[in-house]
């Protein structure tokens, strides 16, 4: 194999996600269509868009929980299948409440071994693995705290550990920043960024506000009005490109600190 071939195969291997002319939705209802994008290994990607635009839907496609309406989506060069251990997932919805008096490490451990049969009596090594995942997100001191006693920011770190415990190659994080104040949001984004760079994993992070993410992003997917635009933030998030894509007048405004606000499809979107 000559070096050029090798470079080509390397480049192909590096591609983690590829969508071609992809349309997604629920029976009898297409939510968005005509999406083309690809993400490579080690990319930090934000997925933004208004409520109901179909961001969670994209995650469900990648998780194999939902089939495309049209087009193809490939994950690691094959069709997404449910139960892929290479995916770390933080869902938008959680069942944790005031009554969930279960220590954090138990949740993380279950994300590691919860699909296995048996009682798991020899849980020592599992708990050790879980503890390491908690350490990696700086939550070692929370390991034996009950989930019900944690703040929103602490919980999100636990969920991140839950996603990381199986050593995934791609992270799907559905709105991990909701309910966080600006400082906690920044901390969590920095943590995700650290994970992305250190472990060379790809991260797709769904958010409503892109601004805390902007300094770290490699790519952004903007989903709205049944369409999806993808590219580098500075290319996608411009008045010209969004207006061209959506056919209506969309304005992207930037303030002196570089914060972005997208006005037109949804007022105040991304406004801080």
């Amino acid at each position, binding site marked *: 194999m000559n070096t050029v071939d090798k470079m080509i195969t390397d480049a192909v291997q590096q591609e983690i996600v590829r969508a071609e002319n992809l349309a997604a939705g629920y029976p009898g209802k297409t939510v968005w269509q005509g999406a083309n994008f690809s993400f490579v290994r080690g990319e930090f990607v934000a997925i933004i868009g208004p409520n109901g635009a179909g961001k969670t839907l994209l995650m469900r496609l990648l998780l194999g929980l939902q089939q495309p309406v049209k087009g193809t989506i490939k994950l690691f060069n094959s069709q997404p299948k449910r139960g892929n251990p290479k995916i770390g997932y933080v869902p938008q919805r959680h069942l944790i409440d005031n009554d969930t008096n279960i*220590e954090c490490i138990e*949740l993380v451990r279950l994300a590691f071994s919860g699909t296995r049969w048996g009682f798991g009596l020899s849980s020592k090594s599992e708990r050790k693995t879980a503890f390491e995942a908690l350490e990696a997100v700086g939550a070692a001191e929370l390991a034996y705290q009950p989930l019900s006693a944690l703040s929103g920011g602490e919980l999100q770190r636990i969920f991140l550990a839950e996603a990381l415990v199986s050593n995934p190659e791609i992270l799907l994080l559905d709105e991990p920043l909701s309910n966080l104040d600006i400082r906690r949001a920044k901390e969590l984004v920095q943590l995700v960024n650290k994970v992305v760079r250190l472990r060379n994993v790809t991260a797709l992070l769904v958010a409503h506000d892109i601004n805390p993410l902007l300094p770290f992003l490699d790519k952004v997917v903007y989903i709205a009005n049944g369409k999806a635009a993808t590219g580098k933030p500075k290319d996608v998030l411009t008045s010209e490109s969004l207006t061209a894509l959506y056919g209506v007048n969309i304005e992207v405004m930037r303030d002196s600190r570089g914060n972005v606000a997208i006005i037109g499809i949804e007022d105040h979107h991304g406004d801080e």
Partner: protein
Amino acid sequence: MVTNSYIFNANLLIDVQQMFQYQFMQHAFEAGTAVAIIAGIVGYFVVLRRSAFASHALSHIGFAGAAGAVLLGINPIFGLLTFTCGGGVGMAVLGPRAVNRDVQIGTVLAFMLGLGVLFISLYTGYATEAYSILFGEILGISSSDVLITVTASLIILAAVGIMYRPLLFASLDEDVAEAKGLSMPLLGIIFMLLVAVAVSIAVQVVGVLLIFSLMVTPAAMARRLAKQPRNAMIISVLISLMATWSSLFIAFYEPYPVSFFITSMVFVSYLFVRYIYPSRICLECREKFSSLSLAKHLQKTHPNI
């Protein structure tokens, strides 16, 4: 059952020896122990999945089955098992959210109780049958019922042993568990079947109407006392066992129903765990001590409670 003719002796050993001379007491302890263990374990999953009302409803559905069986001259336990399993699978198939639909469940529950009343009234035998299904009659349990109870308990134990982690995972974080490949519909059905069988055997001890006291309350207490699911289940089983054993013991001497003693004991412990034990007394100890050592610590620092 005339049980008030036995004389309580200060020597507990003699008391126990005397008690176990009677076969009905042996049977009661055997079945009661099996039920307490199963209710404590399954109950933990019930509270974790917020399905307390669904399990309560299952027992009422079982009432119609038990009454129907009495009418047909079959052992009520088979009617109970048939109806609770059918109802449980039905609820699970209607969707995982169905388990939380209070109004629909309540409507079916009332209908089933009504059906049971009809069956009982059609049965021209004695009304004590209805009474024992509604409130339990552990002191009259037959040796074949003990055998059924123990067998069912072993099956449940094996099932929980095999599916412990998936069940726990699905109860705690449904979305991630689903993404990791666990089948939520299948686990939902299995869970409801476990509850159905557990409820059916527990009805013999506390009856259809008092099922909460064994299936839900001890587990709810245990959940407050332990942060590790395994420990919580152990505590839940211990509470159910203590309530059942001590109630059987007292009922041997006192002419009141066993179910009354069980529900009272569970209720008093619930009040303790819910209102006296918690943070108000000693907020910071919660972090410093594990739940069990906290109990000891409280005994030392607050001997008056």
